[in-house]
């Protein structure tokens, strides 16, 4: 994010503060992606954001406080993207398909976001880790809502919804950890097949994926 002009600019103090806060969050996300959690210090975040250390502490109590805000924002960004993609459809399978496409596309385009949300962010301690946990869980209802009963007519076990979402999060996290965040979108066919098959059976899942 670009810094604001110096000197007289007629911008309200609230605007400046909000802009600084956003720059700090962007600075943290970028630094984290490049150097990892331990080396992402308050000075480095400030440097990336062009915000002084004393201004940093006007917005956040500590590095982890900034982490928490950045994490919160990252999760919201991913959620907004998924919800927007899902809301185009009433039917279950195109809705799930577009939600997954949206998530993987966003993460591949923004590897720093992928790293913050799936891997490095989790080092910031219990608070953020709990948030990760809650975020992964919060995607389960999107999958569950309106899900078909399963190809054999029997309802899909409850643990399946959770295991599908958790399995995808685990796969994506492993790729990010391996430094392959930018190629996450190449996993699309695999992830789609994995998510749809328990509900539709393999043949129908493949048909929907290829109709994409």
């Amino acid at each position: 994010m670009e810094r604001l002009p110096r000197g007289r600019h007629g911008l309200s103090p609230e605007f400046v503060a909000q802009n600084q806060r956003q720059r700090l969050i962007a600075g943290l996300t970028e630094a984290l992606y490049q150097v990892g959690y331990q080396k992402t210090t308050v000075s480095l975040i400030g440097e990336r954001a062009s915000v002084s250390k004393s201004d940093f502490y006007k917005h956040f109590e500590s590095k982890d406080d900034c982490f928490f805000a950045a994490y919160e924002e990252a999760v919201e960004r991913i959620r907004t993207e998924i919800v927007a993609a899902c809301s185009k459809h009433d039917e279950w399978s195109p809705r799930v398909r577009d939600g997954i496409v949206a998530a993987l596309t966003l993460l591949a385009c923004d590897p720093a976001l992928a790293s913050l949300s799936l891997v490095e962010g989790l080092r910031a301690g219990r608070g953020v880790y709990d948030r990760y946990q809650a975020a992964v869980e919060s995607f389960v209802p999107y999958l569950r809502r309106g899900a078909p009963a399963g190809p054999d007519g029997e309802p899909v076990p409850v643990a399946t919804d959770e295991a599908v979402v958790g399995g995808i999060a685990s796969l994506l996290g492993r790729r990010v950890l391996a430094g392959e965040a930018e190629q996450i979108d190449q996993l699309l066919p695999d992830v789609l097949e994995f998510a749809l098959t328990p509900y539709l059976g393999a043949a129908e899942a493949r048909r929907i994926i290829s109709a994409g």
Partner: protein
Amino acid sequence: MDAMAELTAEQGYEATKIADIVRRAGVARKTLYDNFDGKEEVFLGAFDSAVDEIAGQIEEACKAAAGEWVDGVTAGLRAFLDYVAEKPAIARMCLVEAMSATPASATRYDAALERLIGLMRERAPADSGLPETTEETLVGGVAWILHQRIRRGESEQALDLMPELLDFLLSPYLGVGKQKL
């Protein structure tokens, strides 16, 4: 190292101090530092030996199971759930704390997952036509469910998950519902 597992299960990795570990283990601080560089080393040591134990038991159960590949996977999963139910503190350290404790522990967690994925790959039919990442997502999904249940304090009921998790693990290969036959 047992003390480390107990303490991280009770209060988390971050809050666990060297002083707590030596007190719980009943050893002198010097003894700890003779054997380990610091807290992270103790944690990683405890993690590694626990993973060896868990993966060893799963491998053994898989091997001992006679019959089809499905029987091997069933026995392996049962051994895994058994372990979680019997040793909740160690299971928590491996499946919950390790993911977020330190960068090194996250890498080891990933390697441990890889080991289980390898076991699944060895057993699953090679000609299934399923995506290459299938075993990764399946094992990741099972680990996630266990992770959730452990966090909710339900480790001791891990075996109750057997039917649902088995269904989840096998259905991509067999078709939904078939594993019940």
